[in-house]
């Protein structure tokens, strides 16, 4: 078993009487990319802000490499690279000045990595931050999060604002980080990137983690769409107790959580004219959990 790098224990956050997140627990192992998905208001940002100690937890603890992460723990902060969803930096500075400023917070020399990232992401250091487009601001945020070569990356919607070419450059950066053993907490609502880059995924709904699973397993086992045409489809609906999506004459479409083997055995009891079995995409799963 690999080392546990991030551990969240029973994290709960209430804003007065309003629930932010409730009883969130999860463990991230060294070198894994953990996708954290959920719609707006589900509690993704609250979780991240609690991890980063920007807000006070109502209860619960966050451990980084088995040590509790308190707000003034500078040693742990050095190990974390953080990219917020909305990047707000000092508008009066140029990109170069901002990066110089950032370098001074770290004991080790991080200039070489900075140059490498600036070159890969093609960012003009002479520009003033207030003149940067959303995409370029995001690139600067990525450089700031990555340049001190942290062991942990906490990324909140990192690709929003990046063009498709830069998104691919960014995915390549992530792959390299993963190979180095960096642990990545990746919050997003772009589901295609979760299936592309994440090892595991956590689904958050109304402040609670409703599922944590390997992305492959989630896609394999969770949900199947079946479209079948049969004269006695009324009996099928009744016997199998399935969740109907559409129904038209003798053709029905339904979704089910049954394993494929069990599903085929059950369907084989009927006379079927036509059948189509489809694996759910991550988007389908997302809608399934949230509807």
């Amino acid at each position: 078993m690999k080392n546990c790098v991030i551990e969240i224990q029973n994290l709960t956050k209430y804003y007065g009487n309003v629930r932010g997140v409730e009883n969130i627990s999860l463990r991230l192992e060294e070198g894994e990319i953990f996708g954290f998905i959920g719609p707006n208001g589900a509690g993704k940002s609250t979780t991240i802000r609690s991890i980063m100690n920007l807000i006070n937890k109502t209860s619960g603890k966050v451990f980084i490499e088995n040590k509790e992460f308190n707000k003034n723990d500078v040693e742990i902060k050095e190990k974390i690279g953080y990219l917020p969803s909305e990047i707000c930096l000092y508008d009066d500075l140029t990109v170069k000045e901002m990066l110089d400023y950032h370098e001074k917070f770290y004991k080790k020399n991080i200039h070489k990595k900075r140059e490498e990232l600036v070159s890969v992401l093609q960012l003009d250091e002479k520009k003033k931050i207030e003149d940067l487009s959303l995409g370029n601001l995001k690139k600067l945020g990525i450089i700031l999060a990555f340049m001190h070569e942290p062991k942990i990356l906490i990324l909140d919607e990192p690709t929003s604002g990046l063009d498709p070419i830069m998104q691919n450059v960014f995915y390549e950066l992530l792959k390299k980080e993963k190979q180095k053993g960096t642990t990545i907490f990746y919050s997003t609502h772009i589901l295609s990137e979760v299936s592309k880059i994440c090892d595991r995924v956590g689904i958050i709904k109304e402040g609670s983690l409703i599922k944590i699973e390997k992305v492959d397993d989630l896609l394999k086992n969770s949900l199947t769409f079946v479209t079948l045409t049969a004269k006695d489809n009324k009996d099928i609906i009744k016997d199998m107790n399935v969740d109907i999506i559409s129904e038209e004459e003798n053709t029905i479409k339904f979704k089910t959580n049954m394993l494929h083997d069990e599903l085929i055995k059950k369907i084989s009891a009927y006379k079927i004219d036509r059948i189509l079995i489809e694996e759910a995409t991550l988007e389908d799963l997302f809608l399934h959990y949230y509807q």
Partner: protein
Amino acid sequence: MFRREMKVNFKSFLIWTAILVGLFLVVFLVYPSIINSANIQMMDEMMQMFPEEMLKAFNMDISSIDSAFGWLKTEGFVFVLLITGIYSGLLGSNILLKEENDKTIEYLNSVPVTRKSIVLNKIICGILYIVFMVAILSIFNFIGLTLSGNFDKKMYILLSITPIFSSLVIFAICLFLSTFTHKTKKTLGISLGIVFASYFLKIISEMGESTEFLKYISIFTLADIRNVIINVAINPLMVILSIGISIIFMLGTLFRYEKKELV
């Protein structure tokens, strides 16, 4: 972080210092012609017609405006106290809160620094700029007064120091109040209110015995100008009180900021 803080706050420091220096430059340029004219005697006679309480409120009962130094001791220091007070209030309410208002705190919180070090860097920067402002104005006025004629140098030096006491306390109180909100626009009005309310309480407190108690709730009581003019000495109690109150509010700021939700 400290250098950046100094750089960020330099522009407003320069503007407020320029306002003060500009004001006194005009005084030094205009005053010689006033003194040498016959009007000064008329003005002095006119002053005698004001009620004693009124003159006392502006230190005119113990000082005459027949010289540049005389003016400085009366109206001049009103401007110095008010302008350094307003500057300190705005600086205190803005210096820490700006990071939250501009949402740059999310960045600053992610780099390896403690909250205590963020607050301390900002406090030191604020104190330095207040001291610099008072020092620059003092040097400028010293040169101006020297060119204008004779004056009591010891009294002047002591008078020059006094705005630091009230300004530091205003800075510390406004800094502390800024830990109760996330938006600078909420604190700017309050900080200006504290300065003006304090000043008027001080004026009213000097107008009669029945209102004298008000001086105990005015920050400007700590800038012990009247005592300096009469006794050519600063009351050590005021120094201790200023430093003590400032430290209490700064410690309060550290304590509050440590527990504050930053977004």
